[in-house]
């Protein structure tokens, strides 16, 4: 149905969005690339000339580099794992008949509306504070030594906070997918004597494949960039320094824009590796 005419029109209609995003991508990217080859120290007078690949070498040979990549992957992987598993369980539960379904749904999606700074502040102070936090009170009530969440279980704590924020998103998408599942198919399977577990494994789960892919893809994009949660809770201490955070430290705390820009280029590379990896593994589900 695509005539010559409509193709031309389509191109024109796509142009504004493509053009804007191209600018939004190219301008910062070019500037990042430009700065990454510069010795650029704002507090020492700014541009101090070209340095070739010095920044790239320095960034990658720093003892913080590989741990930060690892931390990034652990946080992204951990949050994805938790949100997808719990999301599926919650979606299945919420799809069952019950009283007050609407209200429960509201309760479950609420964390998604909370800004990351606020959720990090609330978790850090009111729950994870080792003296006045609610968890500390709870632990003491059961006669246990309060856990020092943000120092002794720092990575787990951050994964938990971020999972809390993103669980609603995963649940919502998975829930809509489950609701579109053909009821008759399930009923037929039940008549054939399939157990609930079997029905879930052979009918529901395959049906959710596409939704899971979407959840993983969208969340990965956002999770690679998480910043506020770390800035507020640990400030990158106790092994919670992600690649994004390391770049922040180089650019803003050390005021070395050149070095940070080189880090930015590495982060783009890492993001793209993750993206390609995702596409290969789950991309088949994405045939639009």
């Amino acid at each position, binding site marked *: 149905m695509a005539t010559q005419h409509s193709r031309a029109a389509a191109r024109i209609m796509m142009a504004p969005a493509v053009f804007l995003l191209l600018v939004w991508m190219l301008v910062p990217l070019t500037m990042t690339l430009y700065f990454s080859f510069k*010795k650029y120290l704002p507090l020492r007078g700014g541009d*101090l000339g070209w340095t070739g690949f010095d920044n790239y070498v320095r960034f990658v040979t720093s003892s913080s580099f590989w741990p930060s990549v690892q931390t990034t992957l652990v946080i992204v992987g951990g949050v994805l794992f938790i949100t997808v598993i719990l999301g599926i369980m919650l979606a299945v539960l919420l799809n069952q008949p019950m009283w007050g379904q609407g209200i429960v749904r509201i309760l479950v999606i609420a964390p998604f509306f909370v800004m990351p700074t606020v959720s990090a502040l609330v978790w850090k102070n009111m729950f994870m504070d080792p*003296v006045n936090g609610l968890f500390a009170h709870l632990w003491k009530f059961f006669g246990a030594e309060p856990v020092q969440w943000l120092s002794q279980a720092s990575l787990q704590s951050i994964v938990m906070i971020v999972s809390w924020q993103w669980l609603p998103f995963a649940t919502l998408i998975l829930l809509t997918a489950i609701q579109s599942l053909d009821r008759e198919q399930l009923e037929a399977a039940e008549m054939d004597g399939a157990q609930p577990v079997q029905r879930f494994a052979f009918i529901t789960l395959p049906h959710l494949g596409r939704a899971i892919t979407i959840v993983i893809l969208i969340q990965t994009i956002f999770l690679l960039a998480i910043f506020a949660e770390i800035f507020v809770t*640990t400030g990158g*201490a106790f*092994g919670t320094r992600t690649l994004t955070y390391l770049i922040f430290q180089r650019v803003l705390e050390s005021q070395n824009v050149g070095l940070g820009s080189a880090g930015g280029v590495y982060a783009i590379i890492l993001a793209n590796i993750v993206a390609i990896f995702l596409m290969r593994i789950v991309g088949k589900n994405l045939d639009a």
Partner: protein
Amino acid sequence: MSLKVSTLLSACAVTALTTAATAETITIATVNNGDMIRMQGYTDDFTAKTGHEVEWVTLEENVLRQRVTTDISTKGGAFDIMTIGMYETPIWGANGWLVPLDNLSEAYDAADILPAMAGGLSHDGTLYAAPFYGESSMIMYRTDLMEAAGMEMPDAPTWEFIREAAAAMTDRDNEINGICLRGKAGWGEGGAFITAMSNSFGARWFDEDWKPQFDTQPWKDTLEFYVGMMNESGPPGYATNGFNENLSLFQQGKCGMWIDATVAASFVTNPDDSTVADKVGFALAPDNGLGKRSNWLWAWALAIPAGTQKADAALQFIEWATSKDYIELVAAKEGWANVPPGARTSLYENPEYQKVPFAKTTLDSILSADPGSPTVDPVPYVGIQFAAIPEFAGIATEVSQEFSAVYAGQQSIDEALEKAQALTADAMEAAGY
């Protein structure tokens, strides 16, 4: 125009003149500490006197630093006044980024600013920021617990005494920790404390050739002493405690001693917030017999970024906020204990203020701090709990993160010092030393 020689009237007269010229709106970036919030509450007094309006941008300390540093180094011009500290001022002043405060009015009496503060906020003898309040650090301790332990706090104790007293005061069953100290990562938090402490142990950040010194014995001694004492007598989770966490512990009666900023004295003695308000004593920060005490020096100061169109109005604000009149205004409304401390000599000569229990120890602490010669061995940098070079904030934050990992039991002291040495050397090399 009558020219009566009264500070207040002449200030009004000068401002009345400029009011007639233009009433401006100035934007001020500041930190969300109690004294600054109080200052915001009195903005109307400034507007009434000068006609200028004020837009406040109040941010948490880390966010503020990030914000103002970006803006000043790009000449963004988003703010007409920035609240900065003793670390930033000399560096920015040297870069020509700040308006020199060399034409302060007579009534303002710039000579009254405590010399230690003026020195730390100057570059090459020119003042670039006016101190709103200044602080050193000192020991705050519970007189009742000290007595119960059968000990007596000297005016100028040693670290050995502190460790002993801390152990004697500790009563873990009743949630009383002998000593609370900062362990939180960040150059202005735990980093500031351990650096000031290390000075009294004979350690230093760099030798005279800017070579990092974390591979020397004094640093190891410092950390071993700190960790040893905190494990014996410190609160659980001290690796994440900063100023604020320790403040609330102390106010709740959970600390025997606390070595921290002198400004905390007014919070721990305020009966509205503190359960131990009437049981607090003060002493100088400890030493180790090497000739340097472990107290620091800091000021939160107001500076005008070069290039602002509203430098005149901004200067008027600075003169108002850091004046003797402002101190009297706060004293009249909220009592002498709540005035911004540590900035002016005249405050400590005021007989009313001398009645405040912590006034004398605060002044003595400030006077005993010497940013020009902070360490036992000579160093090429200025600053006690920091080194006033642009790279320091970044390096010290990472170093303090390594130290905090030690406090949390995640690595050994040797490992941390080795990493600190490597990352400092690397960053200094990147900066071109």
